[in-house]
């Protein structure tokens, strides 16, 4: 395996024409592109939406189902301190979260060697849907009003440089497809209800990660106007950016040219997606009331001498006229003027 990789590198170096740097960029699905456009133009795109309660699943049943799907029997299991169970089934090591709503799996055997080319979005979507159907149906079982929607492809790219400074051509190590979940036509945004499946360069699956809880409808609430939602994005962005952005008046928002658009002084909105906000199990935020929200990503920068330090801020603002109070949702607290958050550290000795 390792020598194969080396051979590929050597061949690529000799050929000198297989560099894929810049070419192996993520592809957005048409669904995802449209979602980002419509969020800026029309917010949630409806006048009412549901409030959902994120529910747990039977961890043991999920683990047993995955063990069956991935091999004849589990060779061993262990229980981690967070209550997750880890099992080895056939050629896979799989972890299932304590509440049964999330799982990860990694193939144990070596993946195919890296290559200069990537798998395209359509191929990855096909491979991904086949994998979900064959291996993940225990956990991923959409209800009648739910759909699995393809979001984007991603790529793991290998690079290297030797002592002489010579850079080897970049190679694709793995190809990833990301799916989301729509409920009654609205997608879950924020990281929850996401399926990521990674394939080797030969198209064989090498890992997966799933967050797929059950949702129960708690209520229906009126949705805020697009202007109100964008105003929340502006206020949150300015407050989070701090400094001049927080002190300056908010700029007049111009959404006519799409992304990026300035939402606060020096802060550019690079993406917005609206739906049901669920940050997922892995964040441990404990947000189990899943309500209308819009996920945002903004970018800012600071000049330092002749250089620039850039940074991104990500999160979600509520999209209901009146959000259900939740102390675990940072933006909801921020918009409510409530201080809080994790404990700050002390200073080290100097």
């Amino acid at each position: 395996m390792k020598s194969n990789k080396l051979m590929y590198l050597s061949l690529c170096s000799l050929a000198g024409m297989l560099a894929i740097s810049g070419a192996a960029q993520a592809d957005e699905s048409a669904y995802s592109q449209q979602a980002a456009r419509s969020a800026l133009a029309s917010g949630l795109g409806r006048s009412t939406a549901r409030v959902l309660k994120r529910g747990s699943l039977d961890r043991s049943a999920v683990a047993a189902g995955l063990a069956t799907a991935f091999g004849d029997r589990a060779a061993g299991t262990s229980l981690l301190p967070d209550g997750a169970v880890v099992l080895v089934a056939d050629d896979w090591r799989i972890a299932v979260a304590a509440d049964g709503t999330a799982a990860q799996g990694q193939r144990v055997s070596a993946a195919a060697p890296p290559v200069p080319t990537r798998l395209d979005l359509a191929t990855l979507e096909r491979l991904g849907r086949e994998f979900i159907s064959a291996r993940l149906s225990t956990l991923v079982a959409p209800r009648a009003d739910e759909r699995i929607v393809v979001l984007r492809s991603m790529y793991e790219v290998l690079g290297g440089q030797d002592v002489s400074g010579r850079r080897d051509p970049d190679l694709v190590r793995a190809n990833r497809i990301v799916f989301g979940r729509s409920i009654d036509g609205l997608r879950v945004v924020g990281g929850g209800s996401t399926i990521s499946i990674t394939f080797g360069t030969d198209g064989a699956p090498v890992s997966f990660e799933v967050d797929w809880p059950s949702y129960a409808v708690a209520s229906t609430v009126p949705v805020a106007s697009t202007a109100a939602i964008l105003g929340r994005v502006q206020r949150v962005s300015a407050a989070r950016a701090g400094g001049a952005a927080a002190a300056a008046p908010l700029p007049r928002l111009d959404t006519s040219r799409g992304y990026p658009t300035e939402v606060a002084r020096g802060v550019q909105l690079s993406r917005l997606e609206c739906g049901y906000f669920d940050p997922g199990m892995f964040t441990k935020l404990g947000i189990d009331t899943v309500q209308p929200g819009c996920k945002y990503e903004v970018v800012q920068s600071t000049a330092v001498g002749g250089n620039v330090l850039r940074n991104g801020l990500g999160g979600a603002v509520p999209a209901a006229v009146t959000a259900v109070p939740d102390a675990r949702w940072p933006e909801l607290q921020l918009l409510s003027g409530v201080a809080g958050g994790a404990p700050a550290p002390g200073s080290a000795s100097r």
Partner: protein
Amino acid sequence: MGDFKGSVGGSRRTIAPVHPWLGSLCLGLAVAASACTEEPGDADEALGSTSEAVIHPRMQVGVRGAADYQNNWQNYLGNAWNNCYGFGSTISSTDDWIYYYNLVGAKAPLEETGDAWGTAYGSADTVDLYFMETHGGNFGSDTVWAMWDQNSLVNSTAMRLGDDARQLSVLASLSCDVLASADGNFWGRWYNAFAGGLRVSLGGWDLLYDAAGIGASFATRVQWGWTFGDAFANATIGGDGRAKPAVAVAATDANSCWGRLGASAPNIFSQARVRDWSIGYMCWVTWN
């Protein structure tokens, strides 16, 4: 919640009540794996015995970060405490969370000057895994990290990690652009930092996004036995986000370099240190 006083002894006493049941339940997966697998009446037990793949030697973990900066010389990072505390409190159920400090006066403890001063100073080489959130950048000849103090930048060429005290193995920085490689000068920026024997560096090759929950989710994935690279990438991407994470390692040659990218908590200490002139190749994986 009140301020977290991050002195070494104090921090551990303060942390303990967060998960009071964990200390008694699992003193460490490496030494108490059988205890951790016991859950009377659980159907999972019928599936088999303990998997060695996720049990890892206890790591000593240091956490530092900056939310605000002196005279606002850098932009605010409102989720820095969420991520730093989230990482530390989560990882502490399987590993030893040694310190939790801000980045006031933190330049020297990250560079060779003070990386072995001691845990009370938040020195990088006094732990196995150092997690940090702050602004980062690629300044051409140097990778830099912003400290709290105005105009204070840690320079990668002034670092030498992995050779003193506990000998750092993993540098995880939730910082943009620190593992940039497209300009062809990765070697120049990172050789000194790796020359002490540092095993793994994690960070952004382009933009990362300050968002709540990244620290906790990174820790969870490390505990679940994922490679450090995959754990960091999935945590920063957060499902379908646009973050651009990367992992980098140094090795004697390209062949061994690719293998070392598979470092995870269970195998990190089994990787031989590669130092100084023995480093013949540096490699990385970027998530695009």
